């Protein structure tokens, strides 16, 4: 038998493998709280044997590489669900001020203004000769107009605020997509030379999750390790090392933004951008609702008001100002006829063509609030019930977004738990791994020591 130094090589490889193991375990432990980190493991394989005197004897262990535990399908599911949550939370956050604006407070807000305005006409009906009540009617009318103005103003502000967010989000998306494109190209390069790209993939996974929340983008992994991200209608946001550019351009008449991707119209199925767009549309339709309500109130009140006579027996004028040039009345331009605010005696209560009063017209105007024959946009009903339906609609939007968001949070939590079950770090496991590799290291060291002693023994024979 010859002196066999292969034992040292086996020992060296075993030490090497164990210390790799300890290092990777350390890496896992140190990233126990890193978001998006996928735990890694050392891929070990026994080295192919050498044929010695007809026996194949192994050459110890080889480290084949370091791999991460990853489940692409769960990750892409998390991304999809995050996109849905992004849409819902943007809708909820934008629309909840809408419902607050429409709801008003106990003593303020449009609903109260409507009630007290028509209530003042009810009082005038009972006391048609009162100038004091006419002043109150005029004041309440001005208050109703300014409530319309301010509520619409609030909705407009909410809409513009959401539009600002769209622009900010577009900038964020552009930043993220170019980072992802860069990572794509680095991962492709690393893959080609078999480098450990786990950290890059973790980083890219995080970014994809973020961009999914913003745009609802879908990701598909290609065989070269790159990821393709697509938004609505299959337009590519990131493809290989190329990132498309989103652009938000102001569009007339309101100056709200339209989003283009590489100068083509961009649509989003999910994600915050979609949520913001939905919220902007919904707020816009509430603004239209208010406009139609204001127009209908003005139309019906003016028709009745100009059918009667004022306190001095003269023919009635319009109660609310009618914009010049045939412009439609909106919640933004509704205002009291300046002549009436200057002279409350012009408020009409009577239908009689003489000085002295019956309250007929005032009573009819007071009855408009609950008269079911009003038409506002496509709705028919009383002003009060139609306004109630606006409030209920806004409430329903927020409430359904809230409920869906809760469900969505549960789905994401469940998917994340699933992902963590594959990729998450368990300190207990790592502790066991640590022990295992430590023992392996100890054993390998002892093995080398014994091999050394054996060599010493042989060498001492030669002395």
């Amino acid at each position, binding site marked *: 038998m010859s002196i066999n130094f292969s034992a040292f090589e086996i020992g060296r490889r075993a030490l090497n493998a164990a210390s790799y193991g300890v290092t990777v375990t350390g890496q896992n432990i140190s990233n126990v709280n890193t978001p998006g980190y996928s735990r890694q493991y050392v891929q070990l394989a026994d080295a192919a044997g050498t044929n010695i005197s007809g026996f194949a004897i192994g050459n110890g262990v080889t480290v084949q590489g370091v791999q991460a535990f990853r489940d692409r399908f769960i990750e892409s599911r998390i991304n999809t669900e995050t996109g849905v949550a992004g849409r819902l939370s943007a809708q909820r956050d934008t629309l909840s001020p809408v419902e607050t604006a429409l709801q008003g407070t106990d003593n303020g807000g449009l609903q109260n203004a409507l009630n007290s305005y028509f*209530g003042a006409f009810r009082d005038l009906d009972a006391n048609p000769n009162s100038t004091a009540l006419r002043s109150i009617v005029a004041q309440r009318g001005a208050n109703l107009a300014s409530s319309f103005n301010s509520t619409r103003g609030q909705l407009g502000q909410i809409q513009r605020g959401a539009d600002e967010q769209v622009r900010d989000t577009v900038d964020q998306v552009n930043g993220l997509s170019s980072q992802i494109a860069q990572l794509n190209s680095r991962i492709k390069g690393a893959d080609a030379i078999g480098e450990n790209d786990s950290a890059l993939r973790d980083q890219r996974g995080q970014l994809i999750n973020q961009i999914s929340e913003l745009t609802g983008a879908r990701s598909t992994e290609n065989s070269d390790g790159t990821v393709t991200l697509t938004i609505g209608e299959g337009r590519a946001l990131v493809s290989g090392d190329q990132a498309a550019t989103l652009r938000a351009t102001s569009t007339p008449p309101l100056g709200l933004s339209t989003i283009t991707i590489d100068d083509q119209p961009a649509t989003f199925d999910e994600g915050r951008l979609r949520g913001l767009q939905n919220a902007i549309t919904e707020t816009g339709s509430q603004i239209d609702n208010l406009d139609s309500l204001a127009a209908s109130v003005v139309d019906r009140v003016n028709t009745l008001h100009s059918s009667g006579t004022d306190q001095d027996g003269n023919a009635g004028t319009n109660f609310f100002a009618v914009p010049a040039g045939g412009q439609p009345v909106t919640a933004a331009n509704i205002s009291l006829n300046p002549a009436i605010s200057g002279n409350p005696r012009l408020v009409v209560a009577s239908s009689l063509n003489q000085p002295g009063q019956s309250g007929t017209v005032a009573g009819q105007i007071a009855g408009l609030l609950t008269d079911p024959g009003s038409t506002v946009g496509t709705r028919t009903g009383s002003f009060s019930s139609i306004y109630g339906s606006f409030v209920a609609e806004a409430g329903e939007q927020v409430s359904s977004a809230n409920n869906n968001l809760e469900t969505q949070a549960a789905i994401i939590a469940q998917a994340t738990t699933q992902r963590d079950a594959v990729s998450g770090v368990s*300190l207990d496991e790592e502790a066991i791994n640590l022990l295992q590799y430590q023992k392996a290291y100890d054993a390998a060291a002892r093995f080398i020591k014994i091999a050394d002693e054996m060599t010493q023994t042989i060498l001492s024979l030669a002395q």
Partner: protein
Amino acid sequence: MRVSDASVNSDLAARIGAQRSRLGVLQERLASGKRINRPSDDPAGADAVLRLRTSQNEIEGFGRSAKAANQRLTATDDALQSYEPILERIRSLVTQGLTDTTTQDAKNALATELDSLRGRILNIANSKNGEEYLFGGTRQNAPPFDPVTAVPAATPTGAQYVQIEPGANAIATGVTAETVFGDSSSTIFADLAAAAQALRGTGDPVADRATLQNTNSRLIVYTGLTNVVHAKVGAGLNTTESAQDKLKSDFLSLNERASSIEDADFAATALDLTQTERSLDATLQVAGRQHRSLLDFLS
């Protein structure tokens, strides 16, 4: 299933967050006493409450109208009540004037009293309720009768009507002077002026007697008119009073309905709050306990 440290932590955090937000909701309900604090808490309920509140507002408005109508009718009733004894007194004066034994001096005295009573009726007919002529109806730019000549105002008038219940017809809130103090042929003032003149004597005793007899029959007509009008006012008072009662009870029942929709069940909410607090405490305790791993046992 593998349980990783991160998922244990994020799960705990999510649970604590959920319980805290539940606590927030319950505290808001207890503080406001309401189950619906914004429309999204219950959109259909919020809509229903809004409608009920509008109806309440409307009923309050009608309540104010009914009160005003009632007040005006009461004033009319009072005026008629002071008018009726005067009519009685005038009838007895005219009867005395028709008696043959009454001396001319006595007749002159009767005429003087008649003039003063006529003045009182004119005051009643032109009396004001606040800013308005009580018997003016829809004509308010002039007194019903000229305060000096007692000539009826030229502008035609009609009764004032006001609606005091939702969906109901408007009711008259008073009567016009034309229907109380006169009819198509004459007014009480013209008749009384003629009677006073006849009492004082125009030099034609036969004609004077005929005038007084005519006055007597006219007085019966005016008494009849007053009775009819007084009955109408009484009926109007009944209507306004019962309407006020009905509006009040409607208001309360609307209040009850709104409250059953929007108010929080205090006991249930308080219980829920205690339970949520307890489970939050438990979760916090679990979270606060040192999560031990195998590493703790390796020395």
